[in-house]
């Protein structure tokens, strides 16, 4: 078992027992943390692993949320039935919108992905097709019904988000231990060398976008159910900047780093509600200081996760 696995399991354990000591308000904070962790991890697949400068992630998160909201409130689909489309639609949209720009250099990609996010927000606010609810969004989203039970309590929300995070961690572990995850790192570190080893840059960058968007969509669906409402401002460019920054400040491709970033950005402000407006000040300062003092993040990723039988030699 490597260090990342141990940290993941430890984290899951802590989050698994947390609800038994928490009241409903704390449970809500905990749920938010779990959901945003999933989004941050999915951003980390694209940015931290594949190294694609993607600053429109809130659009994929929002796409998942609105897919669930629209299918449920306008078309009467049960929430469970909206899960698959809430994953697949962001994936497909990510592939279609990024395929023509995936070869662009970092700075161009950055601008283009911001553009995607802006267009998405415009679609929501202008109530295109009359189904997004405009600036007010959509209310009255159902709860999950399963085997005749209604999962409406906060603890239900919490454990659904918990399971989603568990699935996310499992996927990331699988990815990192596969040729797909490694290909992303190789591309990130030296794309010319990666190509010369037979790695198709386009394919693996799009792969990262598809997985990242799908996971963000799943988190979005959970987010919509948790609040039983969605509105555009939760998915604007500022949110995308936050996800982007969490990864860089926490530490690209670093599991504890990304969790730390998410905690500081989305949980601390919930705990200190009265200081909520100060969070951007704090985070802004954290961003500047981290980039100066620890350019690879507060908790940088460590490579060298190789099977034990290869580690015989001295370090």
């Amino acid at each position: 078992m490597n260090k990342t696995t141990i940290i993941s399991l430890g984290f899951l354990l802590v989050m698994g027992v947390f609800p038994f000591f928490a009241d409903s308000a704390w449970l809500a904070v905990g749920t938010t943390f779990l959901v945003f962790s999933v989004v941050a991890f999915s951003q980390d697949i694209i940015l931290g692993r594949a190294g694609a400068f993607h600053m429109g992630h809130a659009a994929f998160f929002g796409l998942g949320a609105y897919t669930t909201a629209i299918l449920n409130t306008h078309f009467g689909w049960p929430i469970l039935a909206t899960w698959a489309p809430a994953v697949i639609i962001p994936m497909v949209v990510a592939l279609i919108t990024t395929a023509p720009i995936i070869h662009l250099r970092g700075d161009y990609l950055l601008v283009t992905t911001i553009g995607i996010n802006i267009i998405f927000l415009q679609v929501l606010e202008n109530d295109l097709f009359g189904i997004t609810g405009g600036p007010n969004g959509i209310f009255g989203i159902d709860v999950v019904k399963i085997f005749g039970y209604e999962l409406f309590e906060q603890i239900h929300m919490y454990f659904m988000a918990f399971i989603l995070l568990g699935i996310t961690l499992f996927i990331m572990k699988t990815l990192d231990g596969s040729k797909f995850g490694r290909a992303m790192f190789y591309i990130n570190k030296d794309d010319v060398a990666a190509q010369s080893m037979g790695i198709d840059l386009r394919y693996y960058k799009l792969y990262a976008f598809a997985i990242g968007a799908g996971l963000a969509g799943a988190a979005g669906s959970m987010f919509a159910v948790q609040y039983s409402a969605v509105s555009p401002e939760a998915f604007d460019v500022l949110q995308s900047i936050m996800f982007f920054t969490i990864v860089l400040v926490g530490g690209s491709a670093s599991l504890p780093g990304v969790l730390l970033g998410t905690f500081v950005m989305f949980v601390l402000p919930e705990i200190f509600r009265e200081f909520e407006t100060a969070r951007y000040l704090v985070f802004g300062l954290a961003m500047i200081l981290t980039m100066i003092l620890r350019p690879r993040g507060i908790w940088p990723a460590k490579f060298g996760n190789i099977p034990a039988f290869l580690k015989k030699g001295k370090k």
Partner: protein
Amino acid sequence: MSQYLLEIKNVSKFFSGLTAIDALNLKVKKGQIYGIIGPNGAGKTTLFNCITGIYTPEEGEILWHGKDIKGTAPHKIAGLGILRTFQTIRLFAEMSVAENIMSGRHIKSKQKWYNGIIPTPAYYKDEKYNWGKVGEYMELFGLSEYATTPAGDLSYGVQRKIEMARALAAEPELLILDEPAAGLNENETKELADIIKKVQAMGVTIMMIEHDMDMIMSLCEYMTVINFGAWICDGVAADVQDNPAVIEAYIGSEDEDE
């Protein structure tokens, strides 16, 4: 089927007015160690970049097993069995030596598209098998002790070995080495020559650019000399060494040569 593994036929490559390669011809036989020599700026690296798909030559043909591969994308070239090293070492510096060499196993891995998110028994088997192969190549190059060390932390000589091990891990038919001895000391150069012979014995054809004349003359069965992108002469070591045109090309450019 052609008797040659690789044929360069009338290949020219231009950079905005500069003729980097000028109607060059050469033929590499299977199993050979083939040398490309010439003064700095002669177009040697550019030739390798044309073969490996980084550049597309404006004119001519690059025949691999008799089929034109000109303009094929670099990642597909690797898939065809042509792997390379770089004149300026290009390792994944922050990643461990083992992970670097594992990149060579990329094209050999049989993982399915869904194995990036869903592990299957075949996925675990494939991972285990390929890491095992990495172990073999580390052993072969004497790199086992550095398995978990970031490649960028190691000495120049060791980095050169990692780069070769990485390319070799892809089980290439043709291995292209761009100045593999550059920056190495005498001992390291000797060791490298032994490794290259070992690689040849494994059945790999080798093309190499090198400035170390002793190394070239002792290793290469055949070689082509180029200057200003154009063919000067080719032949076995002895012929090339005594060719007046070669001597002139080198003397004429002595001051730019390192």
